[in-house]
Structures are given as structure tokens and as C-alpha cells.
């Protein structure tokens, strides 16, 4: 929404059909609010049904270390733990690498090189996630197994899934971070160089701190993307909740569980059916909060440069 400097000379006093058109367009715009409300209502309603099942308690859900619907154990910590494991691995891999790529593109690459590299990153970003899942299963896992040994690394493991999620979010981090770095005004760099700093000192001590708000917003958004990523973990991280901190073991994430349960034929109103909505609600709250913080961060620390 950009505020236009011009308005129509007749202002609001317009013909009837003009107003009808505006109303219709407004209703279209309201439709997206309805999507959000729909998501919230449905997730909350089905979660309410889930928590009103006698076997399920709120405390048990948030503190239980076992998720075994067959024996009425509904502790979601193992699922959350696996989600955190894959996301942290992804971030440890993608944040430094993406930041370095962004610095190279924004500060060092010539226009010609940048013009060649950015389309490559866009191609990487446009590949469907299921292809990354296939890559995790057929390339990353065998690679990890040949490095660390067949005994230590299981066929399905969170490390492989995490690393490939890292590759998935890498282009997103690189392009968004490049935008943030390029937005820093040239004068700051010139001032840094004029004070006798080498290019790298200027980058690390002047440009990066100036771009920090945009960079942190990027990282938060990437984290939210990693947490919500589904197909890579569904293929590579393993089926079956497992409370483990070992990244070479199989463990099912929140998203992986939702896909596995809904992929089979679940009957409506069963605990299984309601449980995927409760987990969906948790996922929605986590990612929504991260997105909101990301927006806040970028506006909170946004500095207006002259």
C-alpha cells in the first residue's frame, strides 16, 4: 500500500457504479483476512476437540516426552525437539554461508558477476521442496554415512534433513541479506574508507552493523521457513517420534508427523485427526510469532538515512 500523492479530483463524490466497483475490490481484499481468520478458527476449534479428549491433558501435551497415540501418550516434546534440531542445523549452515554470499554480492562482486549469480540463486530458490527432499535422501544421507560411518548415521536422520533445509533457505537468506546490505547508503562506506579502514573493516564494522535490522529480520524469516518446512523432513528425517539429541538418529518433526498421519486415511473426529490440528496450531503460533517479530525488528531498528 503506497500513499499516492494524487487523488481523483472528484474525491469520494463518485458515480454509483464506481462505488460498487470499489466495494467489490474491497471485499476481495477482505478475503485474505478471512483466510487468516479461517486458519485460526479451524486450528483452535479442532485443537479444542483434541484437548477435550479424556486421554489428553494440556500439561501432558507440553511436558510429555513420549508421543504414542496408540497407548494414549500425547507429549509433543519429541516432535518439537526434532523440529528444533533440524531448524538449528539448517540455520547454523545457512546463516554464515548466506551472509557471506550476500556480502560478496553486495560489496565485492562486479555488476557483471552479480548479474550472472543472482539468476542462479533465483533458480535455486524456485526448485520445489520435494526435489530437495529427494536430494537429502539420495545424496546427503549417503554422503553423511560415508563420512561418519554406516553405524553412527541412520538411514533416516535429522542432520541430513537439517543440512538440506539449510541449502533450501540459503538463496532466500542470500538475496534478502543482499538487499539489506545494499540499502546501507554509500556515504557510510566512503566515510569508513576515508578513516583508513580496509574494505573488510568497513564491511564488518560499518556496513554490517548498519544493516543489522534487515539482517536479523531475514534470519528470523528464514528460521520460520525452516520450522515450517515439510517435504524434506518427511522424506529424510524419519517416521516415528523419537526423543533424541543425536542428529544422526531418526526423529519425526511436527510437520513430518502431520504429513504422515494425514497421508494415511484418518477418520474424522478421531484423536489422530484432531491431533494434527493441535500440532498445526503450535506450528502456526511459532511461525506467526517469528514473522511478526521479524517485521517488528526491521521497522524498530530501521534507521532513516539522509
Amino acid at each position, binding site marked *: *500500500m503506497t500513499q499516492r500523492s494524487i487523488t481523483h479530483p472528484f474525491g469520494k463524490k463518485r458515480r454509483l457504479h464506481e462505488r460498487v466497483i470499489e466495494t467489490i*475490490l474491497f471485499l476481495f481484499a477482505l478475503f485474505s483476512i478471512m483466510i487468516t481468520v*479461517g486458519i485460526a478458527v479451524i486450528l483452535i476449534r479442532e485443537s479444542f476437540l483434541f484437548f477435550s479428549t479424556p486421554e489428553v491433558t494440556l500439561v501432558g501435551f507440553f511436558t510429555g516426552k513420549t508421543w504414542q497415540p496408540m497407548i494414549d501418550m500425547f507429549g509433543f516434546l519429541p516432535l518439537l525437539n526434532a523440529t528444533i534440531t533440524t531448524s538449528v542445523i539448517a540455520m547454523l549452515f545457512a546463516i554464515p554461508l548466506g551472509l557471506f554470499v550476500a556480502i560478496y554480492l553486495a560489496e565485492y562482486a562486479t555488476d557483471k558477476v552479480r548479474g550472472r549469480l543472482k539468476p542462479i540463486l533465483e533458480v535455486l530458490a524456485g526448485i520445489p521442496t520435494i526435489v530437495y527432499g529427494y536430494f537429502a535422501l539420495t545424496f546427503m544421507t549417503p554422503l553423511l554415512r560415508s563420512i561418519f560411518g554406516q553405524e553412527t548415521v541412520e538411514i533416516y536422520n535429522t542432520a541430513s534433513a537439517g543440512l538440506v533445509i539449510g541449502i533450501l533457505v540459503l538463496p532466500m537468506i542470500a538475496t534478502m541479506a543482499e538487499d539489506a546490505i545494499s540499502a546501507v547508503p554509500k556515504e557510510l562506506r566512503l566515510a569508513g574508507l576515508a578513516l583508513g579502514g580496509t574494505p573488510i573493516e568497513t564491511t564488518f564494522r560499518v556496513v554490517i552493523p548498519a544493516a543489522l535490522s534487515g539482517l536479523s529480520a531475514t534470519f528470523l524469516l528464514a528460521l520460520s521457513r525452516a520450522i515450517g518446512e515439510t517435504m524434506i523432513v518427511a522424506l529424510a528425517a524419519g517416521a516415528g517420534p523419537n526423543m533424541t539429541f543425536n542428529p544422526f538418529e531418526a526423529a519425526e518433526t511436527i*510437520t513430518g508427523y502431520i504429513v504422515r498421519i494425514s497421508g494415511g486415511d484418518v477418520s474424522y473426529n478421531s484423536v489422530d485427526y484432531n491431533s494434527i490440528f493441535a500440532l498445526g496450531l503450535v506450528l502456526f503460533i511459532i511461525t506467526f510469532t517469528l*514473522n511478526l517479530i521479524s517485521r517488528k525488528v526491521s521497522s524498530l531498528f530501521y534507521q532513516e538515512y539522509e
Partner: protein
Amino acid sequence: MQTQSMFGTKAEGLLLMQQRSRVSMFWKMIFIFATAIAILFLLLLLVSVIDSIFGYTVIRNEVDVPELVSGASSLDDLSRSQLEETARDNLSSGILRRVEYEKPIAEQSDRELRALIEQYIIKPSVLRSWGLWDSITKQDEIGAYMANQEDSYLIFKSWITPDFLTNDQSANPLNAGIRTALLGSLWIIAITFLLAFPIGVGSAIYLEEYADDTKLNRMLQLNIFNLSAVPSIIYGLLGLAVFVRAMEGVTSGAIFSAVADTTANGRTILSGGLTLGLLVLPIIIINTQEALKGVPDTLRMSSYGVGATKWQTIWSHVLPVSFDRILTGTILALSRALGETAPLVVIGASTFISVDPSSIFSKFTTLPIQIYQWSARPQGSYRNIAAAAIIVLLVLLLVLNSGAIYLRDILSKKKRMAA
């Protein structure tokens, strides 16, 4: 002679300078290295897929052709009458009855007969397959493996063939094809477009051209940004609860008494398309807003100046000028929908259907879902067809994206000519 300064001697200063420039060089190397790694991953991704679609494959036939007809070494050697005879003599009575019922053997073409004989009589199965790299480097191992095998033969196979595109699904990777999945994907994309394009462009026009800076409008905008970052699986849950379950009467076609098949229960193409429509809506809105932002205000002013109303201005000036960019943005959003897997798995796409989707109330499977199903199986040869399906999907996306760029170029050229 040494010059003194507050930072020490000149020699010390030079040393410090050298040190600092070495640090600079070191980091620059790191940056270039990181970029190289990012590109390397794209290459690895493509290589690992391509590696799986070619390679040596060991196949065992249940019955060999010479056993069926003496003197013939392959099905291509058989004459028409021999083909018919072979089919009649060797098919089990149940299958024969079904085949005669669906399409009598006498009416089938030579090609169909060969396929029939291969599928039901010869019954080839894959014992083992190697990727392209292994096929080249591990010839000794393959030779050793073959030495221990009886009744089987080794061929160098390309898993992506014209038959792969046109065949039905099959439990046997050798016969499996992606026709139903391709059709499913196209149907879904069409529904997605019909839902998301009008609403998306309409919303964007409202937000860019009409909306004042009020609290409600700011909330609308913020909400769209937030929606675009909601994980796709959440949209799947929304689609499951709303389209598949609550609106089952509509999405299964029962209300219109147009049920395509009785088992779909709302898990239809319509549900899938609507779900993906909601998913790409925020992307289309944002892309269209960007396109509208690119239209200069002078154009609007001159239109107002000659007495056009606001809608006349938008319809005859703003939209035609930005149409190429709106189209490109929409195609990009649709290519996102084409590759989307998780929401469709959640709303319950069928994993195995052998009938082509015939209407929006049919059961469906899509290309990404096929890739998911095949990748998830432990047997090696399913990986090969998963890779072949990935190639088809990537080619489809490439065509879509380059088509978008081509269209944009044509349209913007037209625009310049008209101006």
C-alpha cells in the same frame, strides 16, 4: 632512518598494514568460497537427479520371448498373427476375459499388444539398478554381480522415455508412467488460477489504487505479508477442514449430482485447486502490487485530467500498462503451486489412481505427490522413476518460467510500439 609517529615506527606501521590487508584478502577468499559452495549445491542437486535417470539395470523376465515363440528373439520380431496367438495362449483366463471386455485383442494395435504381452506374460522386473556414475566407474562390480545371476540380463536404461510420460501408474517401476499425475497437476493449476487470479489482482488494485492510510487498510496489508510466510502445510489443514470436510457436498459434486467417482469424498481436484489457490493468493497480491507501483503517477494524472473516472483510469490505463508484469508475477506464483506437495498430501490426494481425472470432482494425484511416493519407497528402482518425474517437473517449471519471460518481452514490445 626511522620516522616516529604515535602508532610506532614506520616499519611497525607497514607491518600492521600488511597484516590488515592479509586479513582483507582472507575474508574476500571466504566470501568467494561461500558463493562457490552455493553454486556447487545447485549443480549437485541437478547431477544427483540426472545420475539416477540413466544407468545399467538388471532385469529378469518371468518368461523369455524364445520360450513363447521359438525362433523369435524379441517381441518386435513377431508378426501380427503371432502376437495375437501369443496373447490368447498365455494370458490367464481372468485377465484375458477383462482385456476382451475392455478392448478385444483383434482390435488392439500391434503396439498395444506388445505392451499387453510384456506386462502380463513376460513380466520383467528390476533386480538391481545403478546410477550413471556407478555405471561408468563400477563396471567390475556390475560384472561380478552379473556373473552370479541367472536368467537375467543387463541393459543400459534411460528411465525417462516417451512411455513414461504417457503410461498409467503401475506397481512395476518398469511400466509406471506419470500421465495421471501430469493431468492432475494441470487440472489443479487451472482451478488455482481461476480462484487466485481475479481475487488477487482485485485485492492488489484495491490496496494500491483505492486504499487510504487507515488502520484497517494497514492491517490488510500486514495480514497479506504474514499470510505469505505461513507454512504451506497449514494451508493443507485449512483445506482439509474447510474444503474436504465442511464443504464435502460441493467439492465432491454431490450437490450438483455430478459425482465423478464415489470414493473421492471431497478429496477432489476442486478441493486441491482451491487449497492451492488460497496458498498462492498472497503471493499474487504482492506481485501485482509491485507491478502497479511501477506505473508512474503522471499516467493517472493525465487520465484524470481528460475527465476519466477512477475506474476508467485503472481499467484503460493502469492495468494495460502493468499487465505484462502482473502476468509474470502470476505465472511465478502458479509455478510455486505446481511444485507444492505438503498441502495436497494433507488434504488427501490419492496415491494410486489408474483412471484419468475427468472432471473437477475426480480423485487426483499430482507430479510432486508421485515424486514423494516413489522417493519414499525403499526399493532402488523407484528412486529412478522418482528422478525421472523430477526431471519432468523441472522441465515443466522451466517452460512455465521462460514462457513468462517470453510473454513479458512480447507484451512490453507491443506496448512500446503502441506508445
